[in-house]
């Protein structure tokens, strides 16, 4: 049954840490995700009316752009959104077939497309919109944390990271074990004040977001500069320089 594995102390929790301070909103992660996965574990990621009036398709990662605040100091923030591999995933407990499950060994939340009936209840249950029904295949699709990369023996060690992480030109995406407090990602989260999305939903997301850094307030106090000596340009006349 889809009982959610009881988190053991020191339980492995693989996930992503996304740095909103360096994300330039280039969509590389979203498209590269689509590219890898359309021929990968959850593939195909079907597209509908690709050349027609209403192009749309299944994406496991979508990049939004927000503005926060107003006027000169407003901030533009690019915001990639994908499955957060929650510790308390409502998408799993509502699933009537067991197609949705959370792996005990690494905490990855997956869909077994072989038994999914496409009832969409999990998509309703996910507060984050991280699940998308493939209306052509009739089954639910979601971020797999690229299990077919991170455990792929055919790939060189260095390439065993999610496609979106490998491709991010701005190094705004980090992958690792958030269950291990000493892992690089955990330390990033600690140092940079990483946060959960909609903590009030009680889903305990594993993925964390790093906030845009505060900008040093630009001093607007007009400084009175040293007045130019009367000599003007000739102030440099006696400056000894050597070629």
């Amino acid at each position, binding site marked *: *049954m889809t*009982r959610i594995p009881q988190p053991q102390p020191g339980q492995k929790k693989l996930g992503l840490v996304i740095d909103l301070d360096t994300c330039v909103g280039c969509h590389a992660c979203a498209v590269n995700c689509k590219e890898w996965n359309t021929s990968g574990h959850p593939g195909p990621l079907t597209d509908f009316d690709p050349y027609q009036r209403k192009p749309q398709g299944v*994406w496991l990662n979508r990049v939004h752009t927000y503005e926060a*605040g107003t006027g000169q100091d*407003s901030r533009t923030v690019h915001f990639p959104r994908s499955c957060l591999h929650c510790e308390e995933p409502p998408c799993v407990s509502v699933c009537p*077939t067991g197609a949705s499950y959370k792996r005990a060994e690494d905490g990855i939340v997956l869909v077994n497309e072989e038994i999914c*009936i496409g009832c969409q209840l999990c998509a309703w249950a996910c*507060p984050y919109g991280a699940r998308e029904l493939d209306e052509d295949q009739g089954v639910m699709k979601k971020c797999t944390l690229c299990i077919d990369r991170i455990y792929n023996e055919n790939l060189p060690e260095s390439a065993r990271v999610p496609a979106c992480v490998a491709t991010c030109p701005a190094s705004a995406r980090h992958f690792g074990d958030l269950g291990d407090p000493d892992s690089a990602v955990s330390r990033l989260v600690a140092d940079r004040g990483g946060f959960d999305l909609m903590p009030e939903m009680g889903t305990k997301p594993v993925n964390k977001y790093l906030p845009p850094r505060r900008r040093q307030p630009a001093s607007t106090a007009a400084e009175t500069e040293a007045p130019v000596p009367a000599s003007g340009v000739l102030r440099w006349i006696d400056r000894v320089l050597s070629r």
Partner: protein
Amino acid sequence: MKPALSVVFFTTVSGAGWGMLFWLGVLDAASFLPDGRWFGPVAVGVAMALASAGLLASTRHLGRPERAWRALSQWRSSWLSREGVAALAAYLPAIGFAAAWLQVGPFAPLTRALGLLGAVVGCATVVCTAMIYRCLTPVRQWHNGFVLPTYLLLAAYSGAACLSASAAFWQPGPTRLAASLAAFAGIAGAACKRAYWRFIDRGHAASTIESATGLGTLGAVRMLEAPHTEENYLMREMGFRIARKHAGKLRRVTFLLGFAAPVMLLAIGAALGGIVGQVILPLAALCVLAGLYVERWLFFAQATHTVTLYYGRPD
């Protein structure tokens, strides 16, 4: 949320079926049913026909209907699964009840026992249906205390209405009782629904675009650009909205068509009985079903999902 017709139809019609099964069991136990030889089987038939019609419709909402049976596997954790199991389980006591009615008589201990069992399972099925929605935290219009009682009362209401419509062709006494039960359930249901509407109109979501993005500390958050310029599955499924004005209209329709009119018809029909009753009470039942269909459509259409926050749509 998108009011998928299959689902709206399912919850309304099946609800009536389970409600009717419930009353059959309870009233049989209290020997308040017509004792006609064929009443039992026919009434159970009607109830199960309603339930089955709904169940069949609901599979049309599935991406892979041919796998529907798999939905029974997770009854330990999933309300949807439990609903399926309960629904199928209900057929046994129901059929048993009808058989016992014919074999050992309407009010024989065995018949009563099976009736009560059917009542319990029917009721349980409605509880499961309600709980499916009650448990969806991202949808505040569903994740609240009104959903369960409303579902139960409205199932009881529509069920009793259907029962009175059927009884009308046998004996006036039980018919009157069923009709008045329906009327009371209807009034209670209407009150409950009204309170629910108040609640969702007054309240607002615990989540905001600020908590959804975690950017609140920087100031008010607005979406500048969506990930894709055209609409996608998420927004079609979760982003469905109707205008307040339009909703108001439909609420009035629900009230008049679903409650006011039927309750009056029930009263009249029960009072006059006879041929008139046999015309008016079925009419009342149809009214109830139609009205509750609109009510159920609204239940979806007015529900907002937290994912829309990411698309800059306030609750």
